[in-house]
Protein backbone atom coordinates (compact mmCIF):
# COMPACT_ATOMS: atom_id res chain seq x y z
CA UNK A 1 0.00 0.00 0.00
CA UNK A 2 1.06 3.55 -0.63
CA UNK A 3 2.44 5.35 2.46
CA UNK A 4 2.64 9.03 3.33
CA UNK A 5 4.76 8.53 6.45
CA UNK A 6 7.29 5.77 6.90
CA UNK A 7 9.26 5.29 10.11
CA UNK A 8 12.33 3.11 9.68
CA UNK A 9 14.22 1.82 12.72
CA UNK A 10 13.99 5.08 14.59
CA UNK A 11 15.36 5.40 18.08
CA UNK A 12 15.56 8.17 20.67
CA UNK A 13 17.56 8.35 23.87
CA UNK A 14 17.70 11.26 26.22
CA UNK A 15 20.88 11.80 28.18
CA UNK A 16 20.57 14.08 31.17
CA UNK A 17 24.07 15.41 31.61
CA UNK A 18 23.24 17.24 34.78
CA UNK A 19 21.52 14.29 36.42
CA UNK A 20 24.48 11.91 36.66
CA UNK A 21 24.36 11.38 32.91
CA UNK A 22 21.18 9.32 33.13
CA UNK A 23 20.29 7.76 29.79
CA UNK A 24 16.65 7.20 29.03
CA UNK A 25 15.59 5.14 26.04
CA UNK A 26 12.20 6.37 24.86
CA UNK A 27 11.91 5.12 21.31
CA UNK A 28 13.54 1.78 20.59
CA UNK A 29 14.17 0.69 17.02
CA UNK A 30 10.65 1.49 15.91
CA UNK A 31 9.35 1.05 12.37
CA UNK A 32 5.90 1.67 10.97
CA UNK A 33 4.09 2.90 7.85
CA UNK A 34 1.10 5.25 7.72
CA UNK A 35 -1.21 5.71 4.75
CA UNK A 36 -2.93 8.82 3.49
CA UNK A 37 -6.32 9.27 5.17
CA UNK A 38 -5.48 6.80 7.89
CA UNK A 39 -6.29 7.45 11.53
CA UNK A 40 -4.02 6.06 14.19
CA UNK A 41 -4.09 6.49 17.94
CA UNK A 42 -0.97 6.03 20.00
CA UNK A 43 -1.62 4.39 23.33
CA UNK A 44 0.43 3.27 26.26
CA UNK A 45 1.27 4.54 29.71
CA UNK A 46 3.03 7.83 30.18
CA UNK A 47 6.73 7.50 29.40
CA UNK A 48 6.12 5.05 26.61
CA UNK A 49 7.25 7.60 24.02
CA UNK A 50 3.94 8.74 22.49
CA UNK A 51 4.64 12.49 22.57
CA UNK A 52 8.28 11.92 21.74
CA UNK A 53 7.30 10.09 18.58
CA UNK A 54 5.05 12.95 17.44
CA UNK A 55 7.77 15.50 18.15
CA UNK A 56 10.32 13.48 16.23
CA UNK A 57 8.00 13.39 13.23
CA UNK A 58 7.49 17.15 13.55
CA UNK A 59 11.29 17.52 13.99
CA UNK A 60 11.12 19.47 17.21
CA UNK A 61 13.11 16.55 18.56
CA UNK A 62 16.17 15.57 16.63
CA UNK A 63 16.14 12.05 15.18
CA UNK A 64 19.64 10.60 15.38
CA UNK A 65 18.76 6.97 14.70
CA UNK A 66 16.75 5.78 11.74
CA UNK A 67 14.70 7.56 9.09
CA UNK A 68 11.41 9.40 9.03
CA UNK A 69 10.35 9.45 5.39
CA UNK A 70 7.40 11.56 4.35
CA UNK A 71 5.88 12.59 1.05
CA UNK A 72 6.31 16.33 0.81
CA UNK A 73 5.06 18.05 -2.33
CA UNK A 74 5.02 14.61 -3.96
CA UNK A 75 8.66 13.88 -3.13
CA UNK A 76 10.17 11.55 -0.58
CA UNK A 77 11.95 13.44 2.17
CA UNK A 78 13.73 12.22 5.30
CA UNK A 79 12.74 14.49 8.17
CA UNK A 80 15.63 13.12 10.22
CA UNK A 81 18.20 14.67 7.91
CA UNK A 82 16.29 17.46 6.14
CA UNK A 83 17.87 20.90 6.10
CA UNK A 84 16.21 23.49 8.33
CA UNK A 85 14.79 25.44 5.40
CA UNK A 86 13.06 22.29 4.21
CA UNK A 87 11.69 21.64 7.68
CA UNK A 88 10.04 25.10 7.74
CA UNK A 89 8.54 24.28 4.41
CA UNK A 90 7.29 20.87 5.56
CA UNK A 91 5.70 22.45 8.63
CA UNK A 92 4.04 25.03 6.48
CA UNK A 93 2.52 22.66 3.93
CA UNK A 94 2.71 19.01 4.95
CA UNK A 95 2.76 18.36 8.69
CA UNK A 96 0.49 20.04 11.23
CA UNK A 97 0.95 19.68 14.96
CA UNK A 98 -1.60 20.45 17.65
CA UNK A 99 -0.96 20.20 21.33
CA UNK A 100 -2.91 21.57 24.24
CA UNK A 101 -0.34 24.28 24.85
CA UNK A 102 -0.36 27.59 23.03
CA UNK A 103 2.92 29.39 22.67
CA UNK A 104 1.66 32.90 23.20
CA UNK A 105 3.36 35.75 21.37
CA UNK A 106 2.84 38.99 23.25
CA UNK A 107 0.94 41.73 21.40
CA UNK A 108 -0.25 39.45 18.60
CA UNK A 109 -4.06 39.19 18.57
CA UNK A 110 -5.85 35.88 18.95
CA UNK A 111 -7.21 36.17 15.42
CA UNK A 112 -3.77 36.89 13.95
CA UNK A 113 -2.37 33.94 15.86
CA UNK A 114 -5.02 31.68 14.40
CA UNK A 115 -4.66 32.77 10.76
CA UNK A 116 -0.84 32.76 10.72
CA UNK A 117 -0.65 29.35 8.95
CA UNK A 118 -2.93 30.66 6.19
CA UNK A 119 -0.95 33.88 5.78
CA UNK A 120 2.22 31.79 5.56
CA UNK A 121 0.59 30.00 2.62
CA UNK A 122 -0.02 33.39 1.04
CA UNK A 123 -3.78 33.34 1.48
CA UNK A 124 -5.31 36.76 0.91
CA UNK A 125 -5.66 38.46 4.30
CA UNK A 126 -9.40 39.20 4.24
CA UNK A 127 -10.23 35.65 3.28
CA UNK A 128 -7.92 34.33 6.00
CA UNK A 129 -9.61 36.65 8.52
CA UNK A 130 -13.01 35.33 7.47
CA UNK A 131 -11.92 31.74 7.98
CA UNK A 132 -10.26 32.63 11.27
CA UNK A 133 -13.41 34.23 12.60
CA UNK A 134 -15.51 31.20 11.64
CA UNK A 135 -13.06 28.96 13.42
CA UNK A 136 -13.02 31.07 16.58
CA UNK A 137 -16.80 31.11 16.55
CA UNK A 138 -16.98 27.35 16.26
CA UNK A 139 -14.66 27.00 19.22
CA UNK A 140 -16.84 29.38 21.25
CA UNK A 141 -14.24 32.10 21.73
CA UNK A 142 -16.22 35.27 22.60
CA UNK A 143 -15.96 37.87 19.87
CA UNK A 144 -14.64 40.53 22.25
CA UNK A 145 -11.46 38.47 22.71
CA UNK A 146 -10.60 38.06 19.04
CA UNK A 147 -8.53 41.19 18.76
CA UNK A 148 -6.76 40.83 22.08
CA UNK A 149 -3.45 39.14 22.64
CA UNK A 150 -3.92 35.67 24.06
CA UNK A 151 -1.36 36.47 26.78
CA UNK A 152 -4.05 37.13 29.37
CA UNK A 153 -6.51 34.41 28.28
CA UNK A 154 -7.47 31.54 30.56
CA UNK A 155 -5.83 28.17 30.04
CA UNK A 156 -8.91 26.77 28.30
CA UNK A 157 -9.17 29.78 25.97
CA UNK A 158 -5.52 29.55 25.04
CA UNK A 159 -5.95 25.86 24.33
CA UNK A 160 -8.87 26.54 21.99
CA UNK A 161 -6.91 29.30 20.23
CA UNK A 162 -4.18 26.75 19.65
CA UNK A 163 -6.66 24.21 18.29
CA UNK A 164 -8.13 26.84 15.98
CA UNK A 165 -4.64 27.61 14.72
CA UNK A 166 -3.88 23.92 14.29
CA UNK A 167 -6.99 23.11 12.26
CA UNK A 168 -7.33 26.30 10.21
CA UNK A 169 -5.20 24.91 7.42
CA UNK A 170 -5.31 21.34 6.21
CA UNK A 171 -2.20 19.20 6.19
CA UNK A 172 -1.59 15.78 4.65
CA UNK A 173 -0.21 14.66 8.03
CA UNK A 174 -1.65 15.85 11.32
CA UNK A 175 -0.13 15.12 14.70
CA UNK A 176 -2.45 15.61 17.67
CA UNK A 177 -1.03 15.53 21.18
CA UNK A 178 -3.99 15.37 23.57
CA UNK A 179 -5.89 18.22 21.93
CA UNK A 180 -9.04 17.60 23.97
CA UNK A 181 -7.44 17.32 27.40
CA UNK A 182 -9.28 19.45 29.98
CA UNK A 183 -11.82 20.79 27.47
CA UNK A 184 -15.48 20.91 28.41
CA UNK A 185 -17.92 18.58 26.65
CA UNK A 186 -19.19 21.21 24.22
CA UNK A 187 -15.76 22.17 22.93
CA UNK A 188 -14.53 18.62 22.96
CA UNK A 189 -17.32 17.80 20.55
CA UNK A 190 -16.21 20.60 18.23
CA UNK A 191 -12.66 19.28 18.25
CA UNK A 192 -13.85 15.80 17.41
CA UNK A 193 -15.79 17.26 14.47
CA UNK A 194 -12.69 19.11 13.30
CA UNK A 195 -10.72 15.89 13.42
CA UNK A 196 -13.37 14.07 11.42
CA UNK A 197 -13.41 16.86 8.84
CA UNK A 198 -9.64 16.59 8.50
CA UNK A 199 -10.08 12.86 7.99
CA UNK A 200 -12.57 13.52 5.21
CA UNK A 201 -10.00 15.83 3.61
CA UNK A 202 -7.69 12.83 3.42
CA UNK A 203 -5.30 13.79 6.19
CA UNK A 204 -3.36 11.06 7.88
CA UNK A 205 -4.02 11.66 11.57
CA UNK A 206 -1.79 10.35 14.30
CA UNK A 207 -3.07 11.22 17.73
CA UNK A 208 -2.70 10.78 21.44
CA UNK A 209 -5.80 10.98 23.58
CA UNK A 210 -5.99 11.22 27.27
CA UNK A 211 -9.62 10.21 27.16
CA UNK A 212 -10.54 6.63 26.29
CA UNK A 213 -13.92 7.72 24.99
CA UNK A 214 -12.45 10.20 22.50
CA UNK A 215 -9.95 7.58 21.49
CA UNK A 216 -12.76 5.21 20.59
CA UNK A 217 -14.60 7.77 18.47
CA UNK A 218 -11.52 8.41 16.35
CA UNK A 219 -9.73 5.12 16.30
CA UNK A 220 -8.84 3.43 13.12
CA UNK A 221 -5.70 1.71 14.30
CA UNK A 222 -4.39 1.68 17.85
CA UNK A 223 -0.65 1.46 18.33
CA UNK A 224 0.51 0.42 21.76
CA UNK A 225 3.78 2.24 22.29
CA UNK A 226 4.75 0.29 25.41
CA UNK A 227 5.45 -2.80 23.29
CA UNK A 228 8.30 -1.24 21.36
CA UNK A 229 10.25 -0.59 24.55
CA UNK A 230 10.16 -4.24 25.56
CA UNK A 231 12.06 -5.37 22.46
CA UNK A 232 15.80 -5.93 22.47
CA UNK A 233 17.51 -2.78 21.24
Amino acid at each position, binding site marked *: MDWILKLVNIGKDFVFHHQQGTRLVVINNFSMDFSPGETAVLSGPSGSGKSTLLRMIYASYKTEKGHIFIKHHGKQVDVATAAPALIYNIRQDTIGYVSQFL*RVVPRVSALDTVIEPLIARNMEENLAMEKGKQMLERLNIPQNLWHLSATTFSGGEQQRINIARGFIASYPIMLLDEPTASLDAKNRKVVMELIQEAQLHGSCIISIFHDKYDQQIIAGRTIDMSEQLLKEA
Partner: protein
Amino acid sequence: MTGMPDKTNLPLLKVQNLSKFFGKHIGCHDINFELSPGEVIGIVGESGSGKSTLLNCIAGKTNPTNGAVYFNSSDGYIDLCMSDEALLRKIARTQTGFVTQNSRDGLRMGISAGGNIGERLMANGMRNYGQIRKIALEWLETVEIDPARIDDLPETFSGGMQQRLQIAANLVTEPKIMLMDEPTSGLDVSVQARLIDVLRKLVSRLNLSMVLVTHDLAVARLMCHRLYVMKNGKIIESGLSDQILDDPRKPYTQLLVSSVLKP
Protein backbone atom coordinates in the same frame (compact mmCIF):
# COMPACT_ATOMS: atom_id res chain seq x y z
CA MET B 1 18.93 13.54 1.22
CA THR B 2 16.15 13.82 -1.31
CA GLY B 3 14.53 17.25 -1.09
CA MET B 4 16.49 20.45 -0.88
CA PRO B 5 15.46 24.05 -0.31
CA ASP B 6 15.10 26.29 -3.29
CA LYS B 7 18.53 26.44 -4.92
CA THR B 8 17.85 29.81 -6.46
CA ASN B 9 17.92 31.31 -2.97
CA LEU B 10 21.68 31.36 -2.54
CA PRO B 11 22.87 31.99 1.01
CA LEU B 12 23.27 35.67 1.84
CA LEU B 13 26.10 34.93 4.17
CA LYS B 14 28.62 32.11 4.28
CA VAL B 15 30.87 32.12 7.32
CA GLN B 16 33.79 29.74 6.92
CA ASN B 17 36.33 28.67 9.54
CA LEU B 18 36.15 32.03 11.20
CA SER B 19 38.45 32.56 14.17
CA LYS B 20 39.43 35.53 16.21
CA PHE B 21 42.15 35.42 18.81
CA PHE B 22 43.06 38.22 21.16
CA GLY B 23 46.64 37.17 21.88
CA LYS B 24 46.29 33.84 23.68
CA HIS B 25 42.65 34.44 24.44
CA ILE B 26 40.05 32.92 22.10
CA GLY B 27 37.35 35.31 20.90
CA CYS B 28 35.69 32.81 18.60
CA HIS B 29 37.08 29.71 17.01
CA ASP B 30 36.36 27.83 13.80
CA ILE B 31 32.88 29.16 13.22
CA ASN B 32 30.94 27.91 10.19
CA PHE B 33 27.40 28.73 9.17
CA GLU B 34 25.20 29.99 6.39
CA LEU B 35 22.30 32.40 6.39
CA SER B 36 19.56 32.21 3.76
CA PRO B 37 17.37 35.07 2.57
CA GLY B 38 14.44 35.62 4.92
CA GLU B 39 16.04 33.58 7.66
CA VAL B 40 16.63 34.69 11.23
CA ILE B 41 19.35 32.92 13.12
CA GLY B 42 20.17 33.38 16.75
CA ILE B 43 23.51 33.10 18.45
CA VAL B 44 22.98 32.24 22.09
CA GLY B 45 25.30 31.63 24.98
CA GLU B 46 26.37 33.27 28.19
CA SER B 47 28.35 36.49 28.47
CA GLY B 48 31.91 36.07 27.26
CA SER B 49 31.09 33.10 25.03
CA GLY B 50 32.21 35.00 21.93
CA LYS B 51 28.80 35.92 20.51
CA SER B 52 29.55 39.60 20.06
CA THR B 53 33.06 38.95 18.78
CA LEU B 54 31.55 36.75 16.09
CA LEU B 55 28.98 39.40 15.19
CA ASN B 56 31.63 42.10 15.03
CA CYS B 57 33.71 39.95 12.69
CA ILE B 58 30.71 39.53 10.40
CA ALA B 59 29.98 43.24 10.56
CA GLY B 60 33.55 44.09 9.60
CA LYS B 61 34.09 45.91 12.88
CA THR B 62 36.73 43.41 14.00
CA ASN B 63 39.26 41.82 11.73
CA PRO B 64 39.21 38.04 12.22
CA THR B 65 42.45 36.11 12.65
CA ASN B 66 41.43 33.39 10.18
CA GLY B 67 38.55 32.48 7.95
CA ALA B 68 36.17 34.13 5.59
CA VAL B 69 32.78 35.80 5.61
CA TYR B 70 31.26 35.64 2.15
CA PHE B 71 28.44 38.12 1.65
CA ASN B 72 26.15 37.90 -1.33
CA SER B 73 26.30 41.60 -2.17
CA SER B 74 24.58 43.29 -5.08
CA ASP B 75 27.84 42.66 -6.97
CA GLY B 76 28.02 38.94 -6.12
CA TYR B 77 29.89 37.19 -3.32
CA ILE B 78 32.65 39.12 -1.65
CA ASP B 79 34.79 38.09 1.30
CA LEU B 80 34.21 40.75 3.90
CA CYS B 81 37.45 39.79 5.65
CA MET B 82 39.53 40.50 2.56
CA SER B 83 37.77 43.63 1.32
CA ASP B 84 39.20 47.09 1.69
CA GLU B 85 37.74 49.44 4.21
CA ALA B 86 36.09 51.73 1.67
CA LEU B 87 34.00 48.86 0.31
CA LEU B 88 33.21 47.53 3.79
CA ARG B 89 31.96 50.91 4.90
CA LYS B 90 29.89 51.28 1.77
CA ILE B 91 28.26 47.90 2.35
CA ALA B 92 27.72 48.77 6.01
CA ARG B 93 25.71 51.85 5.11
CA THR B 94 23.65 50.28 2.34
CA GLN B 95 23.34 46.52 2.36
CA THR B 96 23.78 45.60 6.02
CA GLY B 97 22.44 47.09 9.21
CA PHE B 98 23.85 46.87 12.71
CA VAL B 99 21.78 47.38 15.82
CA THR B 100 23.70 47.64 19.05
CA GLN B 101 22.65 46.84 22.58
CA ASN B 102 23.37 50.39 23.65
CA SER B 103 21.49 52.74 21.36
CA ARG B 104 24.00 55.49 22.16
CA ASP B 105 26.49 53.55 20.08
CA GLY B 106 24.12 53.28 17.13
CA LEU B 107 22.43 56.67 17.13
CA ARG B 108 23.62 60.25 17.06
CA MET B 109 22.16 61.51 20.30
CA GLY B 110 22.57 65.18 19.40
CA ILE B 111 20.68 64.80 16.12
CA SER B 112 16.90 64.63 15.78
CA ALA B 113 15.09 61.35 15.13
CA GLY B 114 14.48 62.43 11.53
CA GLY B 115 18.15 63.30 11.05
CA ASN B 116 19.17 59.90 12.39
CA ILE B 117 16.86 58.11 9.97
CA GLY B 118 17.83 60.42 7.12
CA GLU B 119 21.58 60.01 7.49
CA ARG B 120 21.82 56.75 5.56
CA LEU B 121 19.67 58.21 2.80
CA MET B 122 21.86 61.30 2.56
CA ALA B 123 24.97 59.14 2.75
CA ASN B 124 23.66 57.34 -0.30
CA GLY B 125 23.21 60.56 -2.20
CA MET B 126 19.61 61.59 -1.54
CA ARG B 127 19.55 65.37 -1.69
CA ASN B 128 15.87 66.18 -1.49
CA TYR B 129 14.81 67.38 1.94
CA GLY B 130 11.10 66.79 1.36
CA GLN B 131 11.69 63.24 0.22
CA ILE B 132 14.02 62.46 3.14
CA ARG B 133 11.45 63.86 5.52
CA LYS B 134 8.64 61.82 4.01
CA ILE B 135 10.59 58.57 4.25
CA ALA B 136 11.64 59.35 7.84
CA LEU B 137 8.00 59.91 8.82
CA GLU B 138 6.95 56.63 7.25
CA TRP B 139 9.66 54.76 9.10
CA LEU B 140 8.77 56.31 12.43
CA GLU B 141 5.27 55.05 11.92
CA THR B 142 6.51 51.61 10.94
CA VAL B 143 8.50 51.24 14.15
CA GLU B 144 5.60 52.64 16.17
CA ILE B 145 7.09 55.98 17.16
CA ASP B 146 4.70 58.93 17.06
CA PRO B 147 5.65 60.79 13.84
CA ALA B 148 5.16 64.05 15.76
CA ARG B 149 8.44 63.21 17.53
CA ILE B 150 10.43 63.48 14.28
CA ASP B 151 12.29 66.60 15.37
CA ASP B 152 12.98 65.45 18.92
CA LEU B 153 16.38 64.29 20.05
CA PRO B 154 16.78 60.57 20.80
CA GLU B 155 17.89 61.62 24.27
CA THR B 156 14.28 62.47 25.04
CA PHE B 157 13.13 58.98 23.99
CA SER B 158 12.65 55.95 26.22
CA GLY B 159 15.02 53.01 25.87
CA GLY B 160 12.56 51.03 23.78
CA MET B 161 11.90 53.96 21.46
CA GLN B 162 15.63 54.47 21.01
CA GLN B 163 16.03 50.85 19.98
CA ARG B 164 13.15 51.10 17.51
CA LEU B 165 14.63 54.33 16.15
CA GLN B 166 17.94 52.56 15.71
CA ILE B 167 16.18 49.84 13.75
CA ALA B 168 14.43 52.40 11.54
CA ALA B 169 17.70 54.25 10.95
CA ASN B 170 19.22 50.99 9.72
CA LEU B 171 16.31 49.67 7.70
CA VAL B 172 15.73 52.88 5.79
CA THR B 173 18.07 51.76 3.02
CA GLU B 174 16.48 48.30 3.01
CA PRO B 175 19.60 46.31 3.83
CA LYS B 176 19.75 42.61 3.03
CA ILE B 177 20.93 41.64 6.48
CA MET B 178 20.41 43.04 9.93
CA LEU B 179 23.03 42.21 12.52
CA MET B 180 21.71 42.66 16.04
CA ASP B 181 23.70 42.60 19.22
CA GLU B 182 21.42 42.06 22.22
CA PRO B 183 18.80 44.53 20.95
CA THR B 184 16.31 43.68 23.70
CA SER B 185 18.65 43.63 26.68
CA GLY B 186 18.12 46.30 29.23
CA LEU B 187 14.50 46.84 28.23
CA ASP B 188 11.67 45.91 30.55
CA VAL B 189 9.50 43.06 29.34
CA SER B 190 6.52 44.98 27.96
CA VAL B 191 8.86 47.24 25.97
CA GLN B 192 10.77 44.19 24.85
CA ALA B 193 7.54 42.54 23.66
CA ARG B 194 6.77 45.55 21.47
CA LEU B 195 10.24 45.57 19.97
CA ILE B 196 9.99 41.88 19.18
CA ASP B 197 6.57 42.37 17.63
CA VAL B 198 7.86 45.20 15.43
CA LEU B 199 10.84 43.11 14.38
CA ARG B 200 8.73 40.04 13.58
CA LYS B 201 6.47 42.13 11.36
CA LEU B 202 9.46 43.63 9.57
CA VAL B 203 11.01 40.23 9.01
CA SER B 204 7.89 38.92 7.32
CA ARG B 205 7.11 42.14 5.43
CA LEU B 206 10.62 42.81 4.10
CA ASN B 207 11.78 39.19 3.91
CA LEU B 208 14.58 40.39 6.12
CA SER B 209 17.46 38.19 7.18
CA MET B 210 18.93 38.61 10.61
CA VAL B 211 21.74 37.42 12.78
CA LEU B 212 20.57 38.01 16.33
CA VAL B 213 22.94 37.75 19.25
CA THR B 214 21.07 37.27 22.49
CA HIS B 215 21.35 35.57 25.82
CA ASP B 216 17.57 35.57 26.18
CA LEU B 217 16.25 32.18 25.09
CA ALA B 218 12.63 33.32 25.06
CA VAL B 219 13.54 36.05 22.58
CA ALA B 220 15.53 33.52 20.59
CA ARG B 221 12.55 31.16 20.37
CA LEU B 222 10.17 33.89 19.26
CA MET B 223 12.48 35.45 16.71
CA CYS B 224 14.79 32.82 15.29
CA HIS B 225 14.39 29.97 12.86
CA ARG B 226 17.68 28.43 13.87
CA LEU B 227 19.99 28.72 16.84
CA TYR B 228 23.70 28.39 17.35
CA VAL B 229 24.87 27.77 20.90
CA MET B 230 28.27 29.20 21.72
CA LYS B 231 30.56 28.35 24.58
CA ASN B 232 34.16 29.44 25.06
CA GLY B 233 34.27 30.86 21.54
CA LYS B 234 33.02 27.73 19.78
CA ILE B 235 29.69 26.65 18.40
CA ILE B 236 28.81 23.55 20.40
CA GLU B 237 25.33 22.87 19.11
CA SER B 238 23.08 24.15 16.35
CA GLY B 239 19.73 23.40 14.77
CA LEU B 240 16.13 24.45 14.53
CA SER B 241 15.19 26.69 17.44
CA ASP B 242 12.68 24.26 18.91
CA GLN B 243 15.12 21.36 18.52
CA ILE B 244 17.73 23.25 20.51
CA LEU B 245 15.35 24.48 23.17
CA ASP B 246 13.09 21.41 23.51
CA ASP B 247 15.68 18.73 22.89
CA PRO B 248 19.06 20.10 23.94
CA ARG B 249 21.72 17.44 23.75
CA LYS B 250 25.01 18.98 24.79
CA PRO B 251 25.60 19.35 28.54
CA TYR B 252 26.07 23.10 28.26
CA THR B 253 22.90 23.60 26.22
CA GLN B 254 20.92 21.52 28.72
CA LEU B 255 22.26 23.69 31.50
CA LEU B 256 21.44 26.85 29.58
CA VAL B 257 17.88 25.76 28.82
CA SER B 258 17.21 24.46 32.32
CA SER B 259 18.53 27.65 33.88
CA VAL B 260 15.81 29.83 32.38
CA LEU B 261 13.26 31.09 34.85
CA LYS B 262 9.71 30.51 33.75
CA PRO B 263 7.13 32.91 35.13
